[in-house]
């Protein structure tokens, strides 16, 4: 079976769901991404982006069924993910300020691997704050923001 392109597959899914849309091929952080333009963005994004996550998950499941080495495709709606990434990291940077100030570690709310990667990356070069991920195989895990000097003492 020839592998359908990510874009064609996404267009078929959205078309069958009855959305009026246009798909634009873009890049986000060096990875292939498909940005959907639609007037029904809210409906497609869902509460806290849950519907968008579900769409991305399902599309990638389908692509992997056709080609085991298919790269993971990021789906965005009207640049929502891009904006959210900035807001999300903004909130976490505020919490990091507290850790800097108090010198006490702080555990963040459990998050998925995509979000954890964003947090680890955001603090990779930080002179004061390190990030530690919880152990285990749960899909949602907590990251703890730790002051680097106390880590060195431990």
């Amino acid at each position, binding site marked *: 079976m020839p592998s359908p392109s990510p874009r064609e*597959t996404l267009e*078929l*899914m959205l078309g*069958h*769901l*009855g*959305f009026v849309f246009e798909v634009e091929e873009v890049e986000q952080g060096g990875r292939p991404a498909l940005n959907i333009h639609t007037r029904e963005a809210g*409906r*497609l994004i*869902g509460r806290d982006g*849950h*519907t968008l*996550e*579900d*769409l991305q*998950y*399902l599309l990638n*499941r*389908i692509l992997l*069924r*056709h080609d085991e080495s298919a790269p993971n495709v990021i789906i965005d709606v009207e640049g929502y993910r891009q904006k959210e990434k900035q807001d999300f990291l903004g909130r976490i940077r505020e919490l990091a300020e507290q850790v800097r100030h108090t010198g006490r570690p702080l555990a963040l709310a459990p998050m998925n691997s995509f979000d954890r990667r964003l947090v680890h990356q955001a603090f990779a070069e930080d002179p004061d704050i390190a990030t530690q991920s919880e152990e285990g195989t749960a*899909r949602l895990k907590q990251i703890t923001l730790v002051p680097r000097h106390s880590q060195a003492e431990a």
Partner: protein
Amino acid sequence: MKHFLDFVVRSLVDNPDDVQISEITHEGQTTYRVGLHPADIGLVIGKGGHTIGSIRSLVNSANKNGENLAVEVVENA
């Protein structure tokens, strides 16, 4: 909606020719029953129900008249 389910489910299973989707309406509640080859049930449900959860979420995201649309997965007899 049936077309969406048909496309997604056939794309996920090993036996697409065995996929049967029926729409049942009972007392105002619409249910889509997805009949599958027994070996394909796990592929459509997914780890921890993640795949079927995503399918249900998308079916309801597109539904404009507010009622909840149910999607159930059954083995073909």
